[in-house]
Every structure is written in structure tokens, then in C-alpha cells.
């Protein structure tokens, strides 16, 4: 069997490099390239068709698995908790999600469960005010779990469709802070066993391999139903979400593409893959 002119080792190395440079990670880049190389040699394709093979393989990795799109409708309010490391875009994402639901005619309440960082409550409060959405908060130093508990009762009694909970940024290596997060989730579960219904990991698109470690820790601590990939309007492509999907089974639900409350889009695997490959 004679290899085509375009399929030299340098050619495949170029593909590996391209994947690594969008933070796919070495292991994933090598595996994916091996897979495509095998297909290319089997199907005897040339260089131009290889791009399509990569596209297909990447799309396959991002497709929802069977049984993943269960749409059980819990008793309102549907509770969404946003978690993640410092500065990843949680507070802004909470506002964007509130806006997203609001545009669909839902009544949303925001909970300011970052009771630690300077001006965190003011920051969310300004967003709430801009959106005309209620916010439940207490003072700095209050127990975040208690605020979550109160917020649920308030959302329930006020007939809200959604409760969106912003939490403090925390490095996943801080076990005491991860315990606090578990406590918040437990408090919600006490008021409503099915809550929180959504736990979204906020990931910064510029994050490298540490993103996978973050996902692992947050998954282990409170469970994750999805990822919000923020700051995709920059030059970073967020390739780490492939590993998060592949190794942990967590899908990307939304992408953040700017700093305004409308800068949120539902995750579109095809568009994401196109951006990755370009």
C-alpha cells in the first residue's frame, strides 16, 4: 500500500500541532490524529479530505449520548448553580442565563451566594437591576448555604420559574472551599430533593490542561450537568472541553461570547468544531 503524497509524518505532526495549539491536550491530540490517520489510510483519502475526517471525528466526540437529553420537568423553580474557579466568568454568566430565560418568558430570581469576594454582591446586584430581575442576598460573611436555602424559599413563594445561583470563585485545590460548595448543594437538596437541577461549570476558554483537573474536582464535589465555556470571543478556542466531554462525560451547554447580558449562546458543536479547526 503506497501512501498518498500529502500524508507524510510531517503532515500528521502538523495536525497534532494544530490540535495541541487549541488546548485539546497532547494525549487527546495524539489519539485523535491516530484515529484519523487510520481512517485516512483505510479509505485512501488525500490531504484535503483529511480535514473532513477530523471534523467528523470531533463532532462525534461532542454529540449528545443516548438518554442524555432527558427533559423531566421538575416542580418550579428549576435551580441552576454556577460553579468554577476564580475569574472564569460565573457572575456574568449568571446574569446572561437570567436574561436568556427571561427572553423565553420565564420569571427568574438570582441568588448572590458569593458572600466572600469584595463587591461580589454589588456586581450581581447591578446586573439584576439592569435586567429587572429580583436578587436574593444577605450581607458579606453570611453562610452561602443559608443564602441558597433562603433564595429557594423566596423563589418558590414568589412563583419563579428559575433560580440561578452565583457562587464564589474557588480553586478546586482548596478542600475547605469545595466542602462549602457541597454544603450549598446539600442545603438546596434539603428544601427540594431534586435541587440543584443544573450545576454548570464555568470554564474560561483560555484555560489549558488545568481545565480538566477543575472539571474532575467540581464533578466529584457537587456533580456537573454541563459546562458554560466563557470568553470564546477571544482567540482561545477552549479545546479542553473535548477532554472534559470524553473523560468525564460532561457536555458544554452554553458559550459566553462577550461581556453583555445577551452574549450567551446555546452550544453549537458544528460551529465550535469549525472554530477549532480554523
Amino acid at each position, binding site marked *: 500500500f503506497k501512501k498518498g503524497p500529502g500524508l507524510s509524518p510531517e503532515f500528521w505532526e502538523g495536525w497534532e*500541532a494544530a490540535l*495541541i*495549539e*487549541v*488546548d485539546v*491536550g*497532547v494525549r487527546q491530540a495524539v489519539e485523535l490524529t491516530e484515529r484519523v490517520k487510520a481512517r485516512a489510510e483505510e479509505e485512501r483519502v488525500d490531504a484535503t479530505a483529511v480535514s473532513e475526517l477530523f471534523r467528523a471525528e470531533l463532532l462525534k466526540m461532542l454529540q449528545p449520548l443516548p438518554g442524555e437529553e432527558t427533559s423531566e420537568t421538575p416542580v418550579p423553580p428549576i435551580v441552576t448553580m454556577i460553579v468554577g*474557579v*476564580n*475569574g*472564569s*466568568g460565573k457572575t456574568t454568566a449568571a446574569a446572561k442565563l437570567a436574561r436568556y430565560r427571561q427572553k423565553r418568558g420565564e420569571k427568574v430570581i438570582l441568588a448572590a451566594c458569593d458572600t466572600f*469576594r*469584595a*463587591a461580589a454582591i*454589588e*456586581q450581581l*446586584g*447591578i*446586573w439584576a437591576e439592569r435586567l429587572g430581575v429580583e436578587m436574593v442576598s444577605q450581607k458579606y460573611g453570611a453562610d452561602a448555604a443559608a443564602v441558597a436555602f433562603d433564595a429557594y424559599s423566596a423563589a418558590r413563594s414568589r412563583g419563579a420559574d428559575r433560580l440561578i445561583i452565583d457562587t464564589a470563585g474557588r*480553586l*478546586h*485545590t482548596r478542600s475547605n472551599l469545595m466542602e462549602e460548595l457541597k454544603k450549598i448543594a446539600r442545603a438546596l437538596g434539603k428544601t427540594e430533593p431534586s435541587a440543584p437541577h443544573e450545576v454548570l461549570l464555568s470554564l*474560561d476558554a*483560555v*484555560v*489549558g*490542561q*488545568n*481545565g480538566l*483537573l477543575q472539571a474532575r474536582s467540581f464533578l466529584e464535589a457537587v456533580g456537573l450537568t454541563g459546562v458554560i465555556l466563557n*470568553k470564546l*470571543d*477571544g*482567540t*482561545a*478556542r477552549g479545546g*479542553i472541553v473535548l477532554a472534559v466531554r470524553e473523560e468525564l462525560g460532561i457536555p458544554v451547554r452554553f458559550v459566553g461570547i462577550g*461581556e453583555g447580558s445577551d452574549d450567551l449562546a446555546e452550544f453549537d458543536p458544528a460551529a465550535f468544531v469549525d472554530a477549532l479547526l480554523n
Partner: protein
Amino acid sequence: NLTKKFQEVFKNVRGMGKLTEKNLSRALREVNLALLEADVNYRVVKKIVEETKEQALGRKVLASVNPGQQFVRLIHDRLVETMTHPDAGVKLDGSPAVIILAGLQGSGKTTTAAKLAGWARRQRPDCRPLLVAADVRRPAAAGQLKTMGEKAGVETYADGGNSPLTIVTDAVNYARSKDFNPVIVDTAGRLHIDPELMEELKSLKSSLNPREVLLVLDAMTGQDAVRTAVEFDRRVGIDGAILTKLDGDARGGAALSFRAVTGKPVKLAGVGERIDDLQVFDPARIVSRILG
């Protein structure tokens, strides 16, 4: 870890004579892998591996009792040399010295500005730093800086209604009249591909003639760190970086990428959310971390 991996690679070399092309290439592949997994940029890694290869072949470095350890030593020292810079201190002298902090959204500028003010006071107990809230975009940014500034016992200059340029110009005049030094400017997070905001930063620099323009860079940044570094340096000109969130478990390859593509030093390290969590950057520590 890398030392163990090298012991594996070289365990057939009985420490006599020169290393072979074969086990050297295996060792270099391990270095390549370690650096990429540590988020060092692909092209920076390629260059490092090439240079290491030349050095190893040219040096007969492995004619020793423990070639694996020797090899790690070679890489380690080489990288520490790269990360070290003769001028890595933060300049605090001026009347006043203006220090501008810039960087991507969420990298840690506001927190670092306040920490830097506290740090300046520790370095020169007689100086009185002034923080300037020049981020007029982010909700409650001024409040955040002010609160953090209070933790450092430092005053914050804020002015709700004006442009960043007006705010900082007024702040510097105020500082001069009241003998504040240094003046530490917190700016809005911005994308290096945002022409308007990069232009704003550039004009801020040209009208203030700052002592330092420092890029605040998140330690968990991946491959894109080179783009950010190059663009900020090319469009605005930076004097160095402050690497934040080093208290996590990110390997910190972005530091090496930054240094390799800009030639500028990493000056300080953010190691936590508290006001005291700022340290002088340690090249040896980051190299050990990157090499895993």
C-alpha cells in the same frame, strides 16, 4: 515524574561514554510531553527541545553515573536560566511612579493592584501608594478596588463619570499634589484583539509615561498565552508580567511561554485571594512545577 522517566530511558546506558541518538530522542520526547502537558506553547517547546538536543549532544553530559538525573539537571538549569531576568524588580521610584496593570478579563488585575499597593508599602514603609480605579466598564469595579485597597490601608482614587484617561490624569495630578507614590492603575479587562480597547490602553500609556506596564496573566492559561503576550507587548509595550493564581495546581507553562516570546520578566506571583498573597516571582520554583 520526569526524573523517574529519564531513569527509565537511560537505564541501559551504563554511564560510560556518550549517550546515543536513540535514548536521547526518547528522553527528548519525554521533555516534549512534560512541557506540553504543563501548557507551555507548542512552538516554544519545539525550540526548547531543539536547543536541549544540541546541548546534550555537544556536552557529553551523560558520561556520568546517573544520566537520568544529569539530564533533568540539564533541562532544569537551562529553563531556570531562561526564566531568570536581570531586571525583574518592580520599579517604585518616581514622582510619582505610575504602574499600570493590564490584561484579559478575570486574570486578577483588581485584586493584584491592591496587593501591589500593600507590597509597595512593605518594600518602602515611608511611601504612600494611591490606587486608581480606571475600570469604568465592569459593574462595581471601583467598589471592589476600594474595598481591597482598604485591606492594604491604601487610598483609592475613583471618579464615576469620566473616561479612564481623564480619571488617571486627574489621579496623577492629585497624587503629585499630595505626595502619593506609587500610583497603581487598575484597568478594565480587555481582549488583545479588541482594537478600541487596545488603543485606549496605548493612549493611557503614552500620556502617563508610566514606570511600569505589567501584564496580569492567569497561571492556568493554556496555549493562547503567547498570543496575549505578543499582542499586549506589540501594541502597547509591557515591562513584565505578574502571574496570578499560582496557589492552584496549574503547572504554569504560560510563564515560560510569556518569557520566551516577549523576553520580558515575570516579576511577581499572586498566590491567593488575600491582600498579602503576593510574592516575588521565583524562577526555580516555576521550573520545577512546569517539569512536574
